[in-house]
């Protein structure tokens, strides 16, 4: 027993290279002062991917509707700021709470059925919310999006400015906090049971793990984190639109996670950096047809395999290649 605990503690321990990495990340809005906006975006997307990783990478739930929680967080934070009070931290908490509530409600939908059923119900939830946000235009602004969200200064001190430096720090800090919490979470005994469920659900059930309640709980937590990402986006851009719920958001975040590596907490972050930089580069060349390249990239990624794509030197070794690669 104590052996397992040691093991868990060890995998959860901070490695030596991680501290300077995070310091560097936190310093980046200063070092690359012209790019604070994109740093902010990367941090948000990374947080979103991290939340998807919790359910996809650690529990094995395939979801095509993760944008539902992202949008929920964004809209509730934006509405809160507009109608109640403009404090960012309280707004963030409200966004998280609303998304968590929604996640708890939806967790009933993912407990039964096959991968296909799960894909469909998660997708359906996102669609319903998108439709709702569209139709309740007296509240959400409908297809025009929710405009005029003014945020108060962070902690009463730091104004959100046009350079986006405050925004970048804000998002990075939230990302760091969430990362630390998530790491504790997946390396706890609870996290270990999640991995057991992912690897073999039947066996997990047989050794007495309450599969359903754990899946429901982790889904709720993931929803809350996605809501946090959405809230950050709405707060730092001062805008929320229907596009938040759209299918391509869910698809993009899945892609980000797969690029970076599923079931590895840094995967979402790495993926977010690669994806955002790639998007920035490609869309500055061909703004309209960026989806073509992302599609091509996906196809190649799956056919060649992620492992072999990031390690090109293995292409010619062994001679054991698969399929159309």
């Amino acid at each position, binding site marked *: 027993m104590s052996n397992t605990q040691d093991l868990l503690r060890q995998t959860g321990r901070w490695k030596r290279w991680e501290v300077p990495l995070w310091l560097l990340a936190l310093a980046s809005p200063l070092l690359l002062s012209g790019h604070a906006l994109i740093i902010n975006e990367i941090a948000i997307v990374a947080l979103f991917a991290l939340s998807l990783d919790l359910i996809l990478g650690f529990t094995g739930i*395939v979801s095509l509707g993760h944008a539902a929680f992202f949008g929920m967080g964004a809209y509730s934070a934006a509405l809160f700021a507009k109608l109640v009070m403009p404090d960012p931290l309280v707004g963030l908490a409200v966004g998280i709470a609303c998304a968590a509530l929604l996640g708890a409600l939806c967790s009933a939908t993912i407990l039964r059925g096959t991968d296909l059923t799960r894909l469909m119900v998660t997708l*359906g939830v996102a*669609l*319903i919310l998108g439709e709702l946000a569209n*139709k309740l235009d007296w509240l959400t602004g409908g297809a025009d999006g929710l405009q005029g969200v003014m945020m108060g200064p962070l902690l009463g001190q730091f104004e959100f400015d046009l350079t986006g430096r405050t925004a970048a720090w804000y998002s990075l800090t939230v990302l760091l906090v969430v990362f630390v919490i998530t790491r504790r979470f997946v390396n706890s005994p609870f996290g270990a049971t999640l991995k057991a469920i992912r690897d073999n659900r039947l066996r997990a059930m047989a050794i007495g793990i309450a599969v359903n309640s754990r899946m429901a709980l982790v889904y709720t937590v993931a929803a809350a984190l996605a809501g946090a990402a959405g809230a950050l986006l709405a707060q730092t851009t001062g805008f929320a639109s229907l596009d938040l719920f759209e299918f391509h958001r869910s698809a993009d975040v899945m892609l980000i996670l797969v690029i970076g590596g*599923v079931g590895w907490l840094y995967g979402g972050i790495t993926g977010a950096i690669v994806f955002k930089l790639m998007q920035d580069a490609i869309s500055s060349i061909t703004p*309209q047809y960026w989806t*073509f390249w992302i599609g091509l990239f996906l196809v190649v990624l799956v056919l060649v395999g992620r492992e072999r794509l990031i390690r090109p030197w293995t292409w010619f070794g062994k001679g054991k290649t698969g399929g159309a690669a």
Partner: protein
Amino acid sequence: MLTILFDGIAYGMLLFILAVGLAVTMGLMNFINLAHGAFAMVGGYITVLLMQKFGVPFLLCLPLAFVGSALLGALLERTLYRPLYHKPHLDQVLFSIGLTFMAVASADYFIGSGQQIIQLPEWLKGRTEFGDGAWMLGMGHYRLFIIAVCAALTVALQYVLTKTRFGSRLRASVDDQRVAAGMGINVNLVFLTTFAVGSGLAGLGGALGAEVLGLDPSFPLKFMIYFLIVVAVGGTSSITGPLLAALLLGIADVAGKYYIPKLGGFIVYSLMIAILIWRPQGLFVRKGGK
């Protein structure tokens, strides 16, 4: 009211033709193919281009759309899809999303992002009405035509799957590939044919539906959800499941949009979620069916 029912049935039939190919690849071959709508779009664009640029008559365009998308499907199956049959579902989802994105962007690039309009021949444009008041039945000739074509196709498909040699080979290959191969069935060929026919049907559906559903480069993404609902709700073990699901969906959608337009797609999605929570394997599943 009857008119709505009639339109709903026509719409459902159309969805069925679009989705039945997907039901086969997804249900029988166990491949989650989100790119199915792209084949439908190809069929639609083949029809539009042939009619506009070359003046080919509409009726001739339909089989051409079928053949065109079937060939494309066969080509892609051979080159891209086959290595993925045994990969995890996540890989299949990612791959087919990628393919869809590429198709959308390509259609946008080559043909333009505008909505395409199909000029129907004169004899399909009319409308016949019976009765009066609440029970009036107005049948657009084109919808009648769609129902006729789809009904004929359904019967033909059912016949092929249950009564012919090819059907039994397909079912055998699906149930156990290794044994089927051992019995001398060329599994690869069977799958190739099935996939091609499925894509061809999608293309035909796209060609037929271009007038009703509208055709623009976002078609695969817009209707992907509907195909998936049909397949998920109908279950994948038979032809009748998706057919009934498509009819249900078509009628619910048309009626919902007519009576409560404010809710839009809301009804359909909620209906789907409710059904899937209630019966995760789909509504019409045989006991022990795959």
